[in-house]
Every structure is written in structure tokens, then in C-alpha cells.
């Protein structure tokens, strides 16, 4: 009986199958999920000089490394540190921190990402001159099954945060990536590089999910208005240097804006071409006091710029620049210069006029030329002359790392939000590993950090800037992290109606 009834029900179901099409809701309101697909042409804050995580120096370097490679942890849009390649936050017991990895991790070439790769990467970071300060508290890194164990010289509450910085991004077997074919575990794969752009495509196997965009072109420019012009005419999905070439212009596509915190430090760095002059603390103090920092608030294309004499951004609790310090303090500058002149002959009054210093700027960071011109004016007040030389970002990096320059305009993104680590980064950028290690290792704390910085002036902070994103309204999901980096992997296209 059961079979007979069931068969009848099936026959009835087939004969009475109905289908209806309903109406569409009256408005396009709502909240669905981001869609996959499409591509975007965007811009970087200059030409990236490296894709090697341990060599990251500029905002553009960090942005590119963050897309190609992955770290054990990440800092979310809420400022909280989350596990990325790691399965959980570090389990810290006394001097050991155990970090388990997520199961089934891979690199973009399909090879497995294991604890061996993590150990090798962290060992390379520790051994590197540029980034070793970051892990100065780590005395050993070993494999423990599917986990890594870090031996610490002192407890580090910020260990996960350290391991979220681009310098610690994991590479296969800890090796430096190949320039023409880097393999990482980041959300995008490298597909090519041309003179003014980088081509990337999505990677399906990223542990935090496939990025929404299929393809990404990241461009940079050496002329001040080219980026805005490209955006204005519809050639790019976002611009970091304005939406239109001229005030009053109108971009081709509806546009919205988003601004990051002002945490990107622009500074004057020192080379060794005139080592006797540039290494002299009083000369640095004289230059520092002669700068008219107040005027730096207007540099750029409308993004927030906060003049600063301290590397710690106001947005991260750093000291605000006093009104007096915003203007040149020439009396203090001349006093310091006089002290310097007592040691350095070329700074004596009758000789300083013959001193010509070269200020290097990256040609793909047009704002830096304007910044450099203000440094020239400060040097002029001291009686010295200076020239500005725009070079490619690669040349700038090479000359800075070899010391083959006088002064340069540099960038330092606040990858670590604590004053100690920001001061340490400043010393590391200046090549002073000993001081960087002391600061990063906690040997110098409290007010002594600022005193140490003032006593050495490894770099001269100029201002902290934000990054203002002008983007097409149909490009959604934009956000900045605390270091003013754009969350590119979360961008998606949502056509306007």
C-alpha cells in the first residue's frame, strides 16, 4: 500500500509542477555579499623598490609585500591582531612562545607552507642587518611538529604584533624571493612588472580567502599630476594624489574618498658623502631647528599632514608639535651650528658657503621634491647650499643603503604602534642597529626613549601624513590599517545602478 501511494504522489507531482516568477523589489537597497571578479587599476605611493620582505622601507614596498606574501598574524581593521598563517595567538610560557600553524597551508606554487619555512624565514629576519632589530628578543626559533617555538630573552606581549609586520612575511624555505617570479602565500600572485606598473592576479588558495578582484594593476608616476589625470579620465579605479588634475575638475566616474590615519612619517635621512658634516649631532640639531615645519601641513594633495619633530605620530599618542617648534628657531640653530663648527672645519662661517649638499628624492614621490625644497631653505638659513636630485626609487634605495648620498627624503610607515618600536625603526632606518636593538629589546624605556632619540637624531622627522584614497564609487570595501596601508584584498566591484 505504501508503494502504491508513493507512486501516485510522484505522478501527481510531475503533472502539477508549477513555476512562477515574482517581481523585483522597488529599490536596490540591501546587504548581500561581496562579489568576485573584475579588475582594478590603482596606484602606489611611489615606486616599490623591493619585493623582499626583509628589505621593506617605504609605504609602497610594504604595500606590495603585503599583497604577495603572508605573515603569521595580521592587524585587522579594528586594530586587533588576528591569526593569519598561525592557528591561534602565541602560547607563551616563560621564555618560550609556541605558535601552531593552520592546517593545509600552501604557497602560490602549490608547495606546502610548513613550520620549516616559518623557522627559516624568521631566522633570516633575525640575521638581517635591516630587520634583525625586530626580533632582537628572540634568541632561537625551532620547529615543533606543525608549530614553531620561539625562545625569548624577555617576555613579549607584542610578539604577535611583531609577527604581523611585513618584514616577517613568510617565504619558501626562508629564501629571498626571485625578482621576476616571487612566490609567496599572499592574496595576489605576481604576473609581471613594467617600468611604471606591477601586474597581479588573485590567488584562490589564500588562507584568508580569495581576494574579490581578479586582476590588479598597481601604478606609479614621476610627474606630479599624472596620477590625478589618469583617475580623472577614467583610467584608474583609485588615486592617492587627488581625483582631478585641476581644482574644480570633475572625475569621469562618481567618486568617494577615504583617508587613513596620519601615521606615515616623512623624514630627512643622512648619508655618508660628507660624513664629517652629516654625522655631527649639532649640525643635525641646527638643521632640525632651522626647519619651518609649520608649512609642511600644506604639502600634498589635500591629505592630512601633521608636522612633527618626533617619529611617534600624534595619532598613535606621540607629542604634538608646539607652536614654537612649528617655526624656525634660528637662534638655537645658529648656536648648534657654532658648536658643530668647532669640530667640523667645513661648517665654519668662512667655509660653510662652499658646502653644497645633495638631497635625494624618489622621482615617483612628487611630494618629496616639495619637502626637499623646504630642507634646502633651512640649509640656506644656516649658510649652506643644497641641490635636489630626483632619482628612481631603486637608485635612492641603493644609494641610501650604501651611504652614497648626503641627505634624502625618506618614508617610514608605522608598522608597530608602540613608541619603543617606532623609535627603534627610526634608528634601524639610519643604520644604527645597536640603538635599534636596545629600544626594541626594552633596554631603553619611558622618557629615556625620547632622550635617546634627541641625543642622536638618527633621522629628522618632518611630518606625519595620511593617505587619502579617491576611488570610484563602484569600487567597494576600502579600508586602511593603522600604518596607512590600503586593504586591497577586500576591494570588490559593485556596479552602480
Amino acid at each position, binding site marked *: *500500500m*505504501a508503494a502504491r*501511494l*508513493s507512486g*501516485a*504522489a510522484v505522478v*501527481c*507531482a510531475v503533472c*502539477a*509542477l*508549477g*513555476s*512562477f*516568477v*515574482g*517581481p*523585483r*523589489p*522597488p*529599490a*536596490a*537597497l*540591501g*546587504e*548581500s*555579499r*561581496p*562579489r*568576485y571578479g573584475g579588475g582594478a587599476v590603482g596606484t602606489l605611493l611611489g615606486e616599490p623598490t623591493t619585493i623582499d620582505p626583509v628589505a621593506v622601507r617605504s609605504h609602497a614596498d610594504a604595500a606590495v609585500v603585503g599583497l604577495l606574501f603572508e605573515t603569521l598574524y595580521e592587524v585587522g*581593521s*579594528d586594530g586587533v591582531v588576528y*591569526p593569519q598563517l598561525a*592557528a*591561534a595567538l602565541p602560547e607563551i610560557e616563560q621564555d618560550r612562545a609556541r605558535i*601552531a600553524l*593552520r*592546517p*593545509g*597551508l600552501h604557497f602560490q606554487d602549490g608547495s606546502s607552507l610548513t613550520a620549516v619555512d616559518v623557522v627559516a624565514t624568521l631566522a633570516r629576519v633575525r640575521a638581517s642587518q635591516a630587520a634583525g632589530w625586530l626580533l632582537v628578543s628572540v634568541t632561537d626559533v625551532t620547529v615543533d611538529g606543525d608549530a614553531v617555538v620561539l625562545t625569548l630573552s624577555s617576555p613579549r606581549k607584542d610578539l604577535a604584533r611583531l609577527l604581523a609586520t611585513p618584514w616577517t612575511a613568510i617565504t619558501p624555505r626562508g629564501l629571498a624571493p626571485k625578482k621576476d617570479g616571487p612566490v609567496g602565500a599572499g592574496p595576489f600572485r605576481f604576473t609581471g612588472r613594467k617600468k611604471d606598473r606591477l601586474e597581479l592576479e588573485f590567488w*584562490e*588558495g*589564500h*588562507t*584568508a*580567502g*580569495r*581576494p*574579490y578582484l581578479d586582476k590588479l594593476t598597481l601604478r606609479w608616476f614621476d610627474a606630479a599630476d599624472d596620477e590625478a589625470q589618469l583617475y580623472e579620465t577614467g583610467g584608474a579605479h583609485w588615486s592617492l594624489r587627488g581625483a582631478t588634475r585641476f581644482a574644480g575638475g570633475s572625475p569621469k566616474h562618481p567618486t568617494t574618498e577615504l583617508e587613513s590615519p596620519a601615521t606615515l612619517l616623512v623624514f630627512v635621512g643622512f648619508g655618508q658623502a660628507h660624513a664629517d658634516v652629516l654625522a655631527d649631532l649639532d649640525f643635525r640639531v641646527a638643521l632640525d631647528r632651522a626647519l619651518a615645519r609649520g608649512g609642511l601641513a600644506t604639502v600634498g594633495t589635500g591629505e592630512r599632514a601633521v608636522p612633527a619633530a618626533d617619529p611617534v605620530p600624534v595619532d598613535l599618542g606621540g607629542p604634538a608639535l608646539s607652536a614654537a617648534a612649528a617655526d624656525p628657531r634660528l637662534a638655537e640653530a645658529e648656536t648648534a651650528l657654532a658648536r658643530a663648527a668647532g669640530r667640523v672645519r667645513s661648517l665654519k662661517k668662512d667655509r660653510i658657503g662652499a658646502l653644497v649638499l645633495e638631497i635625494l628624492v624618489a622621482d615617483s614621490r612628487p611630494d618629496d621634491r616639495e619637502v626637499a625644497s623646504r630642507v634646502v631653505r633651512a640649509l640656506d638659513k644656516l649658510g649652506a647650499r643644497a641641490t635636489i636630485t630626483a632619482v628612481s626609487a631603486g637608485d635612492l634605495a641603493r644609494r641610501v643603503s650604501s651611504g652614497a648620498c648626503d641627505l634624502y627624503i625618506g618614508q617610514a610607515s608605522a608598522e608597530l604602534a608602540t613608541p619603543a618600536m617606532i623609535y627603534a625603526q627610526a634608528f634601524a632606518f639610519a643604520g644604527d642597529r645597536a640603538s635599534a636593538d636596545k629600544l626594541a629589546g626594552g633596554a631603553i624605556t619611558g622618557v629615556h626613549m625620547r632622550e635617546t632619540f634627541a641625543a642622536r637624531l638618527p633621522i629628522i622627522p618632518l611630518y606625519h601624513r595620511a593617505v587619502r584614497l579617491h576611488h570610484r564609487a563602484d569600487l*567597494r*570595501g576600502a579600508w586602511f590599517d593603522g600604518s596607512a596601508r590600503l586593504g586591497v*584584498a*577586500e576591494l570588490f566591484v*559593485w556596479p552602480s545602478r
Partner: protein
Amino acid sequence: MPGDVAASRPPSPFVPTPAPDGGGGPGALWRVVAEAFDAASAEREPPPRPPVPVPVKWKARRVASLDLGAPLLALAAGDLDGDNQAEVVALTERHVVVLRPAARGLAEVARAALPSDPASIRPRDAVGTVVIAHAAGAPSEIRARASTRGRGGRWVLEGKTLREVGSVLAFPLCADVAADLVPGRNYFAGGPGGADVKDPSIGFYTARCRDDVVDRAGRALRAQATVELGGGVTVALETRCAARDASCTPHRELRVEGVGVALELDDVDHDGTIELITSGAGAPGDADAVVVWNLGEGGVGKKPVFRRGFSGGVVGLVSGDVDGDGDREVFAAVRLMGARKVDIWLLD
């Protein structure tokens, strides 16, 4: 394929015959007889009991503002403790939270952490599903999984404690339907019926079922709504037709466009037609709206029964008899993108 909805026939209303293990030869014989009896019962139709309509006035009223500790992913409702009052269950990226009426709104009564197993590849925007499964002779249980974890869990409510009683690997969409996410993406693979589709671009956002309602004539009705990637929803309606009931349409499919991932199905006004309660299909972060459609015998109503806009996104919709008065209450959870705090709105 998307929209290829695999809604099953409404379940039999008859309680299964007890058939305990053991008992030797007589026990085995009893189990055979019980099984045959249940099979026959499953094909029987009980006398239809037409529903008695109740007046429903759709009106949005905010009844609670809750900090759930993590972004909300999904809502479900059901009677977890057998008191004939439904609890509302909220699934967040980190917890399962049970809510009950308190004062004029809802308040938390129990919470359990999701399993700590890490997910290998998870979607960039978190996805989660939660259902309440009822089994004869056993306490109702919560089945939930969030993409933030490597597995889901099953919980029962004991007093004010949620006890985990097992795990689930697939994402539960209905009591008898589950699906897996396309690895690394924010939608489910294939169709909700379990179709094995290799193409990662084919899938659906979510599915929702309702099988404790009857049509105008009192015949058991089951509905399953499947939200497709394009934002359309297909609703499959299965009616439990008697053998000689020529007026009964056992299977119908209806379609509504522009639907978001939060939706609910229920016959809120007990008129024998199901209401489809939806969020909108706009971009994440946009303002949202709750729209109620009547799924009548002639198809989807030309105009919605109710429409209410919200400045935030509608992340969850759920109906249940939370106060035990025999009528269903419909709740919408509204929040700003990524926020831990949600506003709970009572819609009827």
C-alpha cells in the same frame, strides 16, 4: 546548479513507533513490524486542519540593542527547552548565543564558544549558518558552523548552559540540508541538494527552510528558499497531497529578485500562505530594507506586504513564537558592517 532546489516532501506528522534495541527474536520482529508501520504511516495523510488566520500588523519596532561580542552571522529560532516558547539563537564569528524575551526585548541567557579548530581556508567575509533541529524523543539541538572555524558544533540547552554534544562539518542550512563553502569564497558549492559541481563559480549564498506550516486547506507544506549568487531567490513549495486530491499542487517554484542573504520563511498570519521575509541585495555596507512577500497560490504578490528601510544592514531575520502565545514573532537584526552591536527589531 543555483536554484535547483532540492526541497523534500513535508515530513510525516506521525510520531515514530518506539523500537528499542535488544529483545532477541521478539524484539527483532517488533522492530520489523514498527518499521513497516512507520513506512505506511509516512504515506498516510492526516485529516487536514485548515489554519485559523490571525490579524498581523507589520510594524518595525526596535526592542533590543545587543553587544554580541563579535559580528553576527545568522539567526535561528526554536524551542530548545520544551517550554513551548522559542528561543532565538544568534551565531557570531566566535560564539553561539541564546536569547530569550526580557522586559520588552531580548536578552542573552546562554553562550558557548565555537570550536577552536582553525579553518584552513576561509572566505574573506565570514559566513555562518545555524539551525535548530527537532528530533522525536530528544531535546532540540542547535547546529551551527561559522567559516571562522574549521568545524561546527551541535549544542543543547541545559538550564542556562549550552552543552556541546557533537560536531558538524558541513554548514547546516535546514534540519536536513547542509552544504560546503567553495574554499576561500563566500558562497556554497553547487546546489543545496548536494549537487557535486566542480566549477567554483557556481553556487548559492544560502538556503532556508520551513516545514511546520500548512496551506489553506490544512495540508502540510514545506518551503525551501535558495538565494542565488545573482541575488535572486527561488522558493520551492512542496505540499503533502493526498492521493485523490486533484486540487493539490505538490510542487511549485516561485522566484523573487533582489534578495539579500538574510531571509526567513513562515506563515506569520496563519492564512495558509507563506510569507517570504527578505533583506535586500545591495552592496555590503549600504542601507538595507526588510521586505515581506506573500507567496500565494497564484505566485508572488505583485506588491510586498510590508517594506521597511534601515540605515544599517539586515544581517539576520528569524520568526518564532518566543512568548508562547501561539503567534509568531518576526525579528530583524540590523547592524553596521563589522560591528559587534546589533539592533533587534520586532516586525509584527
